[in-house]
Structure formats: structure tokens, C-alpha cells
């Protein structure tokens, strides 16, 4: 069930009266849980089985883990939780990847292990990470175990963020599910604005895809300039797509009085790669930091180990996105960027930068980050090594052609992109893209106008096109 469809609209309108009653009777988790099953089962009811295996496993293991002080037992329960969750994820998401890699390495019998009918349950990476964060928090004593299965299941299944995040921590989401903030007109209006902005961003992403997909489907025949433009276009597409989804999810949730964590903060205005990862897919990067990078030793064990940890974290982060070597390369590139970024600061080369005027330094940092991030997206989009080689050759031809600006820019689309970027720039360091509660008659009027504008633009960009799945649903 996609947010931008009438099916979701009907689902949500049916949900609202139940939710209103549940708020009065303090049974929100039960209603949220029930409707989340419908929402998720809409794709394929069989997916619910995996979801519930994860829920049951982590719920009961967390109870057992919290009930003992014996270190090895605690570690055992944690390991069991990991084993179950990662086995499910590993089998459904990575089995064929590992088999294909084995086939590529000519391992005997590997070809027979391939399961062509294996389907990837939508959002499995997201809810697995959310559930794992919970048991980790219980293990570390950050959060007590949840004693109520319905409440815990509602935390894992909460439909606005179930399939593509933002990945929530139990300490943030669960208290709100039990006792959400009051639903005021101002909050609902703010939620509507956020939702319509997300709808617009998603529509923009699909329009960009329309423009760039022909180039990616025939890279070898596309001109070098077109390939480079398509790579940049994909960088915009994936941002608007995921950003749009996140804003719609947050908008829906805000209407219900439940605030989801911010997932993006003007990432394409990051001044460095490190800065980028504090702005892009924030809920994942914080997860990787808290549950992978820091347990690996973080930056506490010397420079080289820190570089290793960075690289390893980003490689795993890349693999989390998708079962393919292209995602590993993408993660590896970002790991390398972060290592270079850290090294640049660490060995004193950063002082070279400090000699420059502040604006020039910021501009240079932004340009290097932007181009580096865009280049890495290439590996997110392509499917084979051959395509990667062709695309890189085209980039080289473009750089050496002397004709760097031969793209035909669709100005209408560029204008819409500029609107989002302008908002990003203005709200670069703000706590949220739009205020949580709209106040003041003029301001409310202006936000109403903006909502109408986003909604209309979204309709124009999406009407009579088949509803496109969000890119991150596949992860």
C-alpha cells in the first residue's frame, strides 16, 4: 500500500475513527497493530509470518535477557536474537547473492543452490534493524524490556514507518504510541503540509526517473553527457524519492500526534562527507554508529583501527541496502570518503583549508562532497559490472571531451528541483523542514497555500502514471 494511492487514502480514512476511539480508551497500540497488519499484508499476507517471527523472538529474548545478570547468558540471548533476525534477513535478502557470488567463484554445486522464486519481503531490513536496536538497548540497559506484546508489536509494526523507516528507537516511539501528543488542528495542518510536501517530492522523483531511465537502460548508446546527467539525475531522484517517503510518513504520523525522528536534513548541502552522513538517512546512520561503529571500537582505538571501523561500517551499510556487489562498492566508496575526510582532518591537512576564506572552504567542501556522493550513486543504480565499466568510460569521455555543458536541461523540472533545494538551503540547520505546530494567522495561511501548491504540483506530476514503488521499499 503506497502513500500516494487512493487505497492508502481509504485505509487511512477508515483507520482514523478507530484511532479516535482508541485514544479515548487508551488502546492505541492494539488499533495501530491491527491496522498495521492490513497495511503490511496488503503487499503479501505471507510477509506477516516473517514479521511476527522477528517480533516474537526479540520480545521473548529481551525478557529473558533482562531477567538475568549472568553475562554469558545475556550475550547468548543477544546472539540468539541476532542469529534469528539475521538468518531471516540473510536467507530472504542475501541467499541468492551469496549463491551467485559462489557461482562466480566457480564453487562446485553452487548453481544448484539458487532459489529463483525467493521473494524479498518488503521493508525487512528496516523492521529487522528496528527490532535489533530494541534488544541492543535492553542489553545495554538503555531501555527496560517491554512487558506487553501488543505494545512491542505495535512499536515494530507502526505502519507509517514500517516499510522504509525512519528506523525508530523504542525509547522514542513506544511512549508516544502509548500516550501520543494531543491532536490539535495546528498539528494536523502541519502534518498535512509535511505530507503534501513529501507527495510533491515523490512526484518529482518519478518525473526525474522518466527522464533518466532511458539513458540507464541503454548506457552504451547514450552520449557521455547524457550518462553524466543521468547519474546526477539519479542522485536527485533517490533523494526526492526517499525524502518524499520520509516526509509523508512523518506527516501521517504527525496527524496522529506521534512524532517520528527526522531522516534528512538538507543532505546535498553538506560541507563534508562526515557532515553528509549526519544529514542523509539519519536514522540509519545513527543506527550504524550506535550499534556497529561504536561496538567495533569507534574512534577509541587509534587512527588505523578507526579507519577500519569506518570502512567496515560503511561496507555493511552498503550491503544493508541491497544484496549486490554494487551496493558493497557504494558502501566502500562512502567508507573511503569518510576515511579520507577523517585523515584529511587528522594529519593536519585540514589546516591547509583553514588558510582559505571561510566561504571558499565551505564551497569547496560542498562541491567535493556533492560530486563524490553523486558519483557513488552510480553504483546504486547500475546492475552489473559491465554497466559500471561502460558508465565510467562515458564519464571519462565526458571529462576529456572538452564539451562539459552540452546537456539539454528541462527547465521546468529544474525549477521544481530548485524549489526543494531552496527550502533545503533555507532550512539547512533548522530542527525540521516545517514547524511542528503552525501558529499565527498569516503563517497558517502561507502554509495552507504551500500545501495547496505542493498538492497541485504532485497531482500534475503523478496523474495518469502508474504508482511507482518507493526505491527504499526494496531494502
Amino acid at each position: 500500500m503506497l502513500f500516494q494511492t487512493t487505497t492508502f487514502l481509504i485505509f487511512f480514512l477508515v483507520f482514523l475513527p478507530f484511532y479516535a476511539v482508541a485514544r479515548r480508551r487508551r488502546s492505541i497500540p492494539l488499533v495501530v497493530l491491527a491496522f498495521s497488519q492490513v497495511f503490511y499484508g496488503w503487499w503479501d499476507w505471507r510477509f506477516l509470518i516473517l514479521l511476527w517471527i522477528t517480533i516474537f523472538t526479540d520480545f521473548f529474548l529481551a525478557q529473558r535477557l533482562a531477567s538475568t545478570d549472568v553475562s554469558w547468558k545475556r550475550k547468548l540471548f543477544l546472539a540468539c536474537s541476532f542469529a534469528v533476525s539475521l538468518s531471516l534477513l540473510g536467507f530472504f535478502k542475501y541467499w541468492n547473492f551469496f549463491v551467485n557470488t559462489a557461482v562466480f567463484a566457480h564453487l562446485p554445486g553452487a548453481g544448484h543452490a539458487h532459489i529463483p522464486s525467493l521473494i524479498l519481503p518488503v521493508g525487512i531490513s528496516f523492521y529487522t534493524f528496528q527490532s535489533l536496536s530494541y534488544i541492543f538497548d535492553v542489553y545495554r540497559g538503555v531501555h527496560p524490556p517491554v512487558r506487553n506484546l501488543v505494545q512491542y508489536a505495535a512499536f515494530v509494526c507502526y505502519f507509517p514507518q514500517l516499510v522504509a523507516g525512519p528506523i525508530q528507537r523504542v525509547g522514542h516511539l513506544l511512549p508516544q504510541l502509548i500516550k501520543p501528543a494531543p491532536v490539535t488542528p495546528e498539528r494536523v495542518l502541519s502534518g498535512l503540509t509535511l505530507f503534501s510536501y513529501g507527495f510533491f517530492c515523490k512526484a518529482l522523483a518519478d518525473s526525474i526517473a522518466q527522464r533518466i531511465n532511458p539513458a540507464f537502460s541503454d548506457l552504451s548508446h547514450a552520449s557521455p553527457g547524457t550518462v553524466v546527467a543521468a547519474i546526477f539525475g539519479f542522485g536527485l531522484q533517490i533523494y526526492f524519492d526517499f525524502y518524499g517517503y520520509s516526509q509523508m510518513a512523518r506527516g501521517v504520523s504527525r496527524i496522529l500526534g506521534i512524532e517520528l525522528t527526522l531522516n534528512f536534513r538538507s543532505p546535498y548541502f553538506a560541507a563534508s562527507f562526515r557532515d553528509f552522513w549526519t544529514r542523509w538517512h539519519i536514522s540509519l546512520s545513527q543506527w550504524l554508529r550506535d550499534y556497529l561503529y561504536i561496538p567495533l571500537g569507534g574512534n577509541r582505538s587509534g587512527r588505523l583501527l578507526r579507519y577500519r571501523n569506518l570502512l567496515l561500517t560503511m561496507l555493511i551499510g552498503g550491503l544493508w541496502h541491497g544484496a549486490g556487489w554494487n551496493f558493497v562498492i557504494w558502501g566502500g566508496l562512502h567508507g573511503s570518503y569518510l576515511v579520507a575526510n577523517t585523515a584529511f582532518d587528522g594529519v593536519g591537512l585540514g589546516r591547509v583549508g583553514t588558510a582559505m576564506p571561510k566561504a571558499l572552504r565551505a564551497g569547496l567542501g560542498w562541491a567535493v562532497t556533492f560530486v563524490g556522493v553523486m558519483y557513488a550513486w552510480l553504483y546504486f543504480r547500475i546492475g552489473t559490472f559491465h554497466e559500471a565499466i561502460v558508465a565510467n568510460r562515458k564519464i571519462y569521455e565526458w571529462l576529456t571531451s572538452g564539451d562539459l555543458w552540452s546537456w539539454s536541461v528541462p527547465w521546468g523540472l529544474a525549477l521544481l528541483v530548485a524549489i526543494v533545494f531552496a527550502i533545503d538551503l533555507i532550512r539547512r540547520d533548522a530542527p525540521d523542514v516545517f514547524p511542528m505546530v503552525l501558529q499565527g494567522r498569516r503563517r497558517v495561511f502561507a502554509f495552507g497555500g504551500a500545501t495547496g501548491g505542493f498538492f497541485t504540483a504532485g497531482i500534475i506530476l503523478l496523474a495518469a502514471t502508474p504508482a511507482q514503488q518507493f526505491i527504499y521499499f526494496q531494502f
Partner: protein
Amino acid sequence: MAPVWHFVRRVGPFLVGAAAVVFILNAVVAAQHLPEYASWTGIRPLEEKLQKLDRFSSQGPVDALVLGSSISDFGINAKLLSERVTAATGEPYRVFNFSTGATELVTTPTLYRMARTVSKPRTLLLTLPEEGRGPDAIPPRSPDYIMRRAPIRTAIAHPWLFPLEKRFWDIPMVRYAAPLRDRLVYGRFANLVGQGADLYWIDDFGDTVNYAYQTNKADLKFLRTAHETMLVPLTEKQMSAWSQPAKLEHYYSKLDISAMTELRKLTAADGCQIVIVATDVASIYYPVPPTDPTFVRARRQFFGILAHELHAKLVYDVEKFKAQQYMLTDTVHLNHYGANAFTSLVAASLTHSADPRVSPRVEHPTLPDMPSSDPTISGFSALIEAPKHKRALTLRLTILRNEAIPPLPNIPLQVMLRLPDNTDVTAQARLTSDTSVEATFANLPTGPDKLFLARIVYEAGGRLAAHNQPISADSWSR
């Protein structure tokens, strides 16, 4: 009261702001004169006709709605039918031609559902030719195939959601979303493709007006022979012994049969009477209607069984309609003159009047087999009526201007007329707009029942050649 007022004060400015922007943007889109993409149905001429039907029905009741394929789209003149029935009965009678290309029996419930979103006709003139038993699956590229993949599919069978959906798609920002999106994404109307129907003008009665002549005798004979052997009639014994479902299955596919049931229910619910107007491919009418008893029997059975199943009245003029060559556009379709002649017969049948003059003594030039070796004659040449009197000798020819047809070029053009005595006269053309030219002639034969073969030509390599743009209208003036 106070909490309500408080709520309105808090929410009001937001709603006013949102509505104002949506309203303004919608108005801006409506003012853009964007091309029609037919995003709702996927079939542009059909949506154009639906708009025209909407306008038509806003001016008065729709007494009859013609439904059929391109055969009745070209071959029935709803305007003339309206005039003839009105004249015969003394009561205003308004007919709209909602036929669209490639319609089959299976398409008719969908077309009827579409039509009733804007108007509920009193009579449905189901105008179809006999055909061999079709497949039990929707064939690719058919209107049904296209519509089952277009947004219209979602609510079409729903009684109140479908009219709402139609209104939704009438909102300019929705209706013109696709061309706007193309302009934004590509800077041009990249996904706008020309269609065959773009070549013809649709009048306010839904008639697709076609003055072209594109046939040759060999093709006419070939298709006629093929068509005559298409149906296998039931024997007298079978006709009396077989049940109605068995007879139906002999001539009609399962899809056709279920479409008949659906159409019967829909029309019954609206109090609309179905009248089947038997028609045929153009080559069947030329030079005389077929007399082969097997074919004649099969065709009678085909329409008789259909009429019985639909509880419909049958207008059966196909056996007496004799077309002359100038009435045919091609092997399948009649042109404007053929449509007038056939419609006159139908009007007489509907009003129980005496048969009209089916084959008037029309004087026209000898029509060559097409494609013609004469470079000035092409499929875009048009048969036009001679001026009524000597004083009106300035001819204005108008072409359509749409997605498929570019404006007239700004080059020296001439208008050439082939007269009934087979002589050609030529006059310099004056470009009066990017869609029309005027030319003044001297000493033309005048009077009714005379046709000229008109074409726009230009000089190329020392000789005249046809300029290939379809003529949609002509008029004579002083």
C-alpha cells in the same frame, strides 16, 4: 458555538490558503491551451467526442445516441438524421454520433457507460456490421484493451463512482497533467502521438466528416468477396431447433454475449430503447448490394439473433443501399456523401417514411483508381460540392490543425479542381490563415448534384504535385 468558531479560526486560514492556490493553479492550467492526451481513457477521439456530447446534451435532450465503430463514425450523419427525423415527425429530434474507431460489440457497454456520465439518451442506435465470431479474449490494441490499461478501468462499473471519476478527470490540472508533465520533463510534448482520427474533423453532432476518396476497384472487389464468405449461416432446421443461446454462440463470442447482457441491463435501467441499425463495410454496397443467398441469409440471422437478444428494434436497410464509387472513402468506410445517402435511408425507416432517393444523379469527374498515377491526386484530395450559383466562385478550403497536422506551409500554393467533364482548372491560392486557403475561379459549372475533386497543389520540379494535408471543410463565396 464558541469551540466551533475557535476551530474555524485556527483552521480557516490554512484551508483558504490551500484552496486559493489550488484554484489559481487550476485556472492557470486551464488557460494554457494544452493538447489533449486523453489520459483518462487512452483514446483521444473518444474523449473529444465525450466533451462534444457533454456540450451537445447541455443544449437539449439527446433523443438518440449512435454507437458503433468507424463504419458508423464515418457512415452515419447524425446531423442529417436529426434534421430528417425532426422534419418527418414535426418534433425536435437530436442525435449524437458517439461511434469510435475499432469498436466491437464488447466495447458498447463501456461506451454507453461513458456517454451516460453526461447524458442519458432515449434511444440507442447500435450501428454495427456483421462480423465473423470474434475471439473470447480482448485483442491487443483494441479500444477495450487500451481502456483496461487506462485510469478509466478503476471505476467504470461503479454506478456513482464512475460519474465522479469523470468529473475528477475534467478538472484541468488532472486532465492536462500529462502534457504539462511532458513540458516540464522534456520541454516539449514528447508523449503526444498522432492518431489516424486526427486527420478528420468531428462536428458538433459527433460526426467525423470525411470528404476523401481513396478506393480502387480491385480492392473493393477483393474485400467484398472476402466479406461475403465470412459467415456460415445456420440451416432452417438449426434455426428452428436450436435454442437462442446456441444460436448466439454460433455468431457471437462469449465476450460479445456478456456485453449484450450488460448493455441490455444498462439501457433497461435508464429506460433507453435499443434500435439496431444494420450496416456493413463500404465495399459490400458497391456496385450493388450482394444477392448471394448464403450471405444474405447469414447476415439476416446475425442481426435477427442480436435484435432478439437485446430486445431491440431492427432497422435493416443494408439490402437496399447501393453506393456509387464517389460515396466511398475506402473499402470499409463511406465518406460524407455515402453517409448522407445511408442516413437518409435510416431516417426513412425510423420515421416510416417513403424511401428517399438513394442514388441521385450526381455529376462528378471520373474517379481514378487509387493510388493515382496523377501526382496532383492523393488520398487527401477531397470531393466537394460545386457552387450553387455563378456569383460565388471563391473557394475556401480549410484544413485541420492538431497534433498530427502541421499548419499550411508559407509557400506558393494553388487550388486545383477536377470538374465533372474531367478537365482540371487551377487558381492561385491565397493563404488566409495557417489552416485555410482561398482561390477564385471563373466559369465553373454550378448547381446541385455536381461534385469536383479538389486538392491543394504546389509546383515541384516544373510540375504540380499534391500537397498532403487533409481538407476538413469547404465553402463558396463571392
